[in-house]
């Protein structure tokens, strides 16, 4: 514990929202209000409701004060997340305070007023269900309900004070005009200034990117910067990138690559807890490498999970059958799971969540992704980088071997975005290249990097036939293969 924390340690309340508790270093400050500011459609209401629903699962009941949508609308809108709010209300675990505007009534202001009624109702609801958590959604719309903003500001201040006296942990949402502007519309943050969290839904390169940032937590620590999040069928999931602990296990256990020749080149196989990147242009044999890796693992008694983003299941199975592997049968027997998806079907954050879930569910010993670079086009450069980091960190954490392929943009080498992001994270790099010699197109393979092990540094000829892959002799009289400009050397130079 640092000296700044000494003597005034602020307790935190675990919200139960995946990833959120990591980014906030343990949840929301207990007994305080936290402002959640975000633009329209930034999932403020989902977060507010999830905070309360997760609370009820932990024996902490909740009250939702709604200023915008009616309770009936809210109940209906969150059903899609599997949250049965009506049941929670019937069980006395959740209560609404309905402060949504009544459109069917004429409304006039005829003298001085205050929000004592609202404060009394919040207090009554909190006592009725013994609430520990309160959410106010969304506070900015009070300003459109009342004419005198000075009164509204004064009364919001009273509400904040009242929440403190009720000793509940509160989450207050409010609108922002844009993702990188003032903290909130109407300057609401001055009433609940202690803790501020921003939700963003920014448009970058024509793609939506949702992030969450803890702007400030008075007197207590939190993770800095923006973290991507996704709104899934089960609510919001935050992806805590830098909060992921990179436990670099230096395991010495070797597993087969599926090719005895490649194992030999790698100094005895891949390391079990390692990420291997195989890079090459289209047709150089990446999918074959994945097939061999998959089949080799299964032959050694391992379970294998393979993600295909370039080919359909049928295609992948047909290819494997061509090399003598019956993947359909192996999948039926539970040794293998093949998941094929078009990259475009969902944003990167959702891909990550689905892949992680598949890994957790299937519990494989090895994972292959063919190809990782196919996912490049789904997100922005930045979100792709975050995706790669999060995926590799997760795979490593599971003590599995991971083979990821990357398709280079040009036929003769070159680097892809995938490589730029992953090359320092991965433990081994295998390059596959076309080699043009004497009017003939051949394939070359080299192990560029093998962390923690000696390896063959030669560029070997790589051939593919009906029996799979074969590694032959090294190219002796060709230079410039890896940079993509092979030139024949005079034989005399050897």
């Amino acid at each position, binding site marked *: 514990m640092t000296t700044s924390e000494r003597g005034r340690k602020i307790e935190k309340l675990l919200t139960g929202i995946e990833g959120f508790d990591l980014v906030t270093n343990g949840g929301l400050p207990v007994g305080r209000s936290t402002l959640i500011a975000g633009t329209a459609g930034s999932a403020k209401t989902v977060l507010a409701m999830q905070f309360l629903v997760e609370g009820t699962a932990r024996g902490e009941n909740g009250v939702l004060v709604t200023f915008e949508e009616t309770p009936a609308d809210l109940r209906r809108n969150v059903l899609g997340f599997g949250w049965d709010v009506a049941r929670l209300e019937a069980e006395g675990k959740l209560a609404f*305070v*309905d*402060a*949504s505007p*009544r459109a*069917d*009534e*004429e*409304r*006039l*202001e*005829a*003298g*001085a*007023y*205050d*929000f*004592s*009624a*609202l404060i*009394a*109702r919040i*207090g*009554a*609801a909190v006592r009725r269900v013994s609430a520990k958590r309160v959410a106010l959604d969304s506070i900015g719309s*009070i300003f459109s*309900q*009342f004419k005198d903003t000075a009164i509204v500001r004064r009364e919001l201040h009273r509400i904040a004070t009242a929440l403190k006296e009720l000793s509940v942990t509160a989450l207050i949402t409010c609108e922002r005009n844009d993702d990188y502007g003032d903290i909130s519309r109407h300057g609401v943050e001055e009433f609940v200034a202690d803790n501020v969290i921003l939700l963003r839904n920014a448009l970058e390169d024509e793609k939506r990117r949702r992030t969450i940032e803890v702007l400030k937590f008075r007197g207590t620590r939190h993770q800095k910067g923006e973290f991507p999040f996704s709104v899934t069928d089960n609510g919001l999931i935050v992806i805590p990138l830098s909060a992921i602990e990179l436990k670099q296990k230096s395991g010495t256990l070797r597993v087969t690559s599926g090719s005895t020749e490649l194992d030999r080149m790698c100094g005895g196989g891949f390391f079990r807890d390692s990420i291997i990147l195989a890079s090459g242009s289209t047709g150089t044999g990446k999918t074959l490498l994945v097939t061999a890796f998959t089949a080799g693992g299964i032959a050694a008694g391992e379970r294998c999970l393979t993600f295909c983003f370039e080919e359909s299941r049928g295609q992948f199975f047909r290819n494997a059958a061509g090399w003598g592997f019956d993947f359909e049968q192996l999948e039926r027997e539970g040794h293998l799971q093949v998941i094929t998806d078009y990259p475009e079907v969902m944003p990167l954050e959702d891909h990550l969540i689905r892949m992680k879930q598949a890994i957790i569910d299937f519990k494989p010993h090895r994972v292959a992704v063919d190809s990782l670079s196919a996912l490049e086009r789904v997100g922005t450069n930045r979100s792709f980088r975050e995706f790669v980091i999060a995926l590799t960190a997760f795979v490593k954490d599971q003590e599995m071997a991971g083979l990821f392929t990357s398709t280079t943009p040009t036929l003769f080498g070159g680097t892809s975005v995938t490589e730029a992001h992953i090359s320092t994270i991965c433990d081994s790099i295998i390059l596959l290249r076309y080699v043009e010699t004497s009017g003939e197109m051949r394939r070359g393979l080299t192990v560029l990097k093998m962390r923690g092990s000696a390896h063959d540094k030669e560029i070997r000829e790589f051939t593919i036939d009906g029996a799979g892959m074969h590694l032959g002799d090294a190219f002796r009289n060709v230079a410039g293969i890896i940079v993509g400009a092979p030139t024949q050397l005079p034989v005399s130079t050897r």
Partner: protein
Amino acid sequence: MIDKLRLELFVIGHSPRSKTAVDNLRRILDSTMPGEFDLKIIDVLEQPQAAEDSNIMATPTLIKRAPAPVSRLLGDLSATDTVLRGLGIDSTVPNKDDDDNK
């Protein structure tokens, strides 16, 4: 009018603002249609559920339930003209020399 004027006034305990609202309302009603109304005064502290059912945020709040349309008046009802308009009472009836513009 077929319907009798039916009113609900939501207040908080015995706060000065609540008292002002009750006094203002009685003064206006007495000078316009004595006896022709039904007024219920509801203390939000004693009956929070009643406030919940009617979405009461601010106090004092006066709701005119009948005759239609339902209308809602916020505040201590010191703006007599607004109150008369909200209640649908012909504004020529009350004595205009009142102190409602102070």
